[in-house]
């Protein structure tokens, strides 16, 4: 059991390292890469923004009910922005990507394997790993930080909507309070850590999809494993990366 777990971890690690190495070796499959940027980035945009907006509203409703007891409702905007920049934006965007994109990648590649499309690519002297895996890994790694920024913005805007309805707070004042005391270190490292999340989601999902060979049952397993394992790994990686950020930016830990 333990041996098989370490075997799997080793295989995924080698698969991920190969993707990282091959990303720098031509040909760069630019046309297919653009398609992946579109499918992964633009395709996830509405889900991420809608979720961010809803979370922003709900978060404000919860924090308001607590802060009102201490007369600290003026702090709601900055709580909102810090919460989204530091944790909610990066983690929720990553989990949404694991659900939407990870399942899609796992199922699509497993189906391509089952229907011999991957073999067909190889017979045409095209490197199927570069075409199918490396492009998806790059696209997820680049798009997740961008999607996280949209989630942060939507969450802050959702907070504003809620506050505006409750207390008629103006846009200017809300934004002033939201960014008062927020440093670049509050925004940049947590946003950049999502590039690691994107890489992990893509590598894990591609691994399960690319290496399956069990027909329709393999497609089901690949889709399920992609979501479950990549979500779990993202959460575990978050713990490690937050510790790293605290180490590199000690002010963040206070």
């Amino acid at each position, binding site marked *: 059991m333990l041996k098989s777990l370490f075997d799997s971890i080793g295989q995924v690690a080698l698969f991920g390292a190969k993707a990282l190495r091959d990303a720098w070796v031509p040909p760069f499959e630019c046309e297919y890469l653009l398609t992946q940027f579109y499918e992964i980035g633009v395709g996830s945009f509405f889900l991420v923004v809608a979720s961010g907006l809803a979370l922003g509203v709900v978060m404000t409703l919860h924090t308001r009910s607590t802060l009102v007891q201490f007369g600290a409702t003026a702090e709601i905007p900055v709580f909102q922005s810090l919460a989204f920049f530091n944790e909610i934006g990066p983690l929720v965007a990553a989990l949404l990507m694991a659900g939407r994109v990870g399942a899609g990648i796992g199922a699509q590649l497993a189906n391509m394997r089952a*229907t011999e*499309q991957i*073999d067909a690519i190889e017979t*045409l*002297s*095209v490197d199927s790993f570069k075409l199918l895996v490396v492009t998806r890994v790059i696209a997820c790694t680049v798009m997740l930080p961008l999607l996280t920024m949209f989630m942060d913005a939507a969450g802050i805007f959702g907070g504003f909507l809620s506050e505006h309805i409750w207390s008629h707070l103006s846009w200017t004042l809300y934004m002033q309070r939201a960014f008062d005391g927020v440093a670049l270190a509050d925004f940049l490292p947590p946003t950049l850590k999502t590039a690691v999340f994107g890489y992990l989601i893509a590598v894990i999902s591609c691994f399960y999809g690319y290496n399956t060979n069990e027909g329709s049952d393999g497609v089901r397993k690949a889709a399920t494993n992609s979501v479950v394992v990549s979500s779990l790994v993202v959460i575990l990686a978050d713990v490690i990366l937050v510790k790293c950020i605290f180490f590199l930016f000690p002010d963040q830990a206070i």
Partner: protein
Amino acid sequence: MTEGQVTTIAFEQVEKGFDGRKVLDKVSFTVAQGEAICILGRSGTGKSVTLKLMIGLLQADNGKVLVTGEDMAALHEDGLVKVRRKMGYLFQSAALFDSFTVNENLALPLHRLDRNKSPEEIKRVVEETLGEVGLAKDGNKMPSALSGGMQKRAGLARALVLQPEILLVDEPASGLDRITASEIDDLLMKVKTERHTTMVIVTHDIHGARKIADKFAVLDQGRLLAFGTPEELDRRNDNWLQQFIAER
């Protein structure tokens, strides 16, 4: 093989197994340049595995698979690409990329392997090849919008787009009605006569096989039981063999 003919594909004592089960057991035969051979046999006797060994999708456990003189097991990535460049493969399910149009399916290898070709040239080659298989007006369709026969034609067009010296075909008649299967056979015949392409065809359709093949290779339980011209095998007084090669 007659004297003076060049060997394009050679199997030398090839063995291949999966999960402890031997699928090919010391199989040896050669295919000469421009020759068409049909591999016949019951399901699960290693026919498709033979094709996959030829194009390097699988590696033999023992023995040698030589394609144009190159040992497929000894080739590294670059060498494999060079050998595969000479080969086309029509899969049983056609295996068209379902997220690409038919045109894009054909253009993919041209873009990757012939980087000197302009987009206009690639478009022309794609249109010409689709015209040859009777799909000139269907290039913008997605594979899911094509019938089984059209998918096979598109798969054949993709296999031919790089003008291969060797064409490997897995069950061209599978899942098709007799008339459509016959049309695919006619296309293969056309390729054979006009381009002098070396062909290896795995099939259950003896009618089509007799139309195309110069030689039959009959496999059973991983062993090559018979190899020769249809006439030679017809003369053999072997009931078991006749089950496979007699026209029904």
